[in-house]
């Protein structure tokens, strides 16, 4: 089985997938693409439904036997299934439930907020020719809003609140443990992926959060994570942002 991973800078969902790949000791053809230019929409698999309509927005794409796979948490679950390294999910059903439920809240509430704030601070510059291929109408609207500099104040404030809530939750979860689920899991990778770049943008949320700071250092100290971060082609990959999941439009 050969795999090709099209990825951006090691931040957000690209970070999760690259780190999971290396944690599991897997080999893949690594192809860096400029997600911030809209390069994903020029890939041969760009119009496959699971690529074009990925809820995650501009995330990495793992291609296996011609099928483009998106959504970083689920790609990481796949890599966990096929790889040989230490498990990235707990073995018991309840602990696995907690891991998936944690990730669900992270991708539904934290990720849209982080991508929104990240794109406001570090706007991606899309190539208009590539954006013409964007299959998801609402994703194209998000690109257009970023291009026009439209960031509503109430959404910015709500996004900051969601980042603060996520950091609070992490700080509370880390009492008496090194990793969010007790053992190192995809929940650590996905949470770090979206929150590493928020420390500079929402500093108040991180003030006094000593357990969170130590946890971030522990993650950065892992060899697989170091390998993922070494693929950065920019000085600070946590300042590299692309349109992410949309902020909930209903309920």
């Amino acid at each position, binding site marked *: 089985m050969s795999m090709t991973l099209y990825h951006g800078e090691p931040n957000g969902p690209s970070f999760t997938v690259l780190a999971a790949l290396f944690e599991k000791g897997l080999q893949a053809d690594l192809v860096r693409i400029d997600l911030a230019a809209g390069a994903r929409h020029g890939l041969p698999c760009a119009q496959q439904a699971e690529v074009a309509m990925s809820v995650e927005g501009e995330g990495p794409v793992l291609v296996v036997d011609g099928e483009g796979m998106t959504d970083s948490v689920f790609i990481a679950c796949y890599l966990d299934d096929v790889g040989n390294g230490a498990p990235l999910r707990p073995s018991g059903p309840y602990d696995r439930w907690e891991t998936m439920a944690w990730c669900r809240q992270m991708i539904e509430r934290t990720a849209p907020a982080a991508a929104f704030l990240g794109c406001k601070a570090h706007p991606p510059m899309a190539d208009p020719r590539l954006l013409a291929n964007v299959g998801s109408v609402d994703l194209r609207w998000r690109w257009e809003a970023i291009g026009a500099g439209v960031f509503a104040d109430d959404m910015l404030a709500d996004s900051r609140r969601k980042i603060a809530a996520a950091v609070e939750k992490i700080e509370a979860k880390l009492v008496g443990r090194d990793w969010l689920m007790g053992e190192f899991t995809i929940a650590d990778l996905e949470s770090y992926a979206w929150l590493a770049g928020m420390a500079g943008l929402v500093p108040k949320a991180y003030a006094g959060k000593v357990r969170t700071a130590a946890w971030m250092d522990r993650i950065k100290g892992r060899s697989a994570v170091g390998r993922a971060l070494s693929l950065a082609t920019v000085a600070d990959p946590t300042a590299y942002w692309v349109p992410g999941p949309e902020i*909930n439009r209903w*309920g």
Partner: protein
Amino acid sequence: MGDVALYHWEPNANSGKPMLTLMEKGVAFDSHYVDLLNFDQHRPDYLAINPQGTIPVMKHGDLVLTESTAIMEYVDEAFPGPKLMPDNPRDRWRIRWWMKFMDQWLAPSFSMIGWSVFVGPAVRSKDPEELKAAIERIPLPERRVAWRKAIYGLFGDDEMKESQRRVAVGIGMLEKALSKRTWLASDQYSLADANGFNLAYALPLSQPSLSNDALTPNIMRWLRSIYARPATKACWATGRTDMVKRVAILEQPHIGREHVP
């Protein structure tokens, strides 16, 4: 009964996902009906179980589980019975992808339309002061906004139009996926099908101009196949509202263009 208890509303959307999964697996459970239309989910006894005030919640012994799709995976892993996740890792990825797509992108649009035409009108006749107090008790700010819109009919034209656009796109995607394989995300019946049925069981009634045997034959085949399963029949038979009883449309052998009102 046993040590499993499910706090749920109707076999529909989020409540129906764990209900149907438990029934498919043959897991007996204590059913606790939480009447969404009576705001039971925001009362202190329910908030003591789930402080977020969302439905459903499952208890397994001393364990308390929320997030309906994550509960589905738990039920499949924790109990014996037919496996609802295939062995193939790529199939499992595809099943999760479709469940997320439906949960986060498609279902909110179905839900907005459903709350506009069913949930809002169903509660609107209650005492205005009682409704106001009910809204104030909702723990999550975004749910307060949702209920306010439903109760007072505050949906904007643009957001309803966008929901209808997404429903049309989603129906097209489901039809295309189901033209490639028997089931939505793999070659065997899976959690993605149970999830999807909760979203789409009334499609030929709610979206008659977009889904019927002429326009979406694969969706209709899929819905009827799921409804023919004993677990689905038993699950939907527990429904109390007219909304859920719409599932009977699937007993009709043919729903053509003439069905369009």
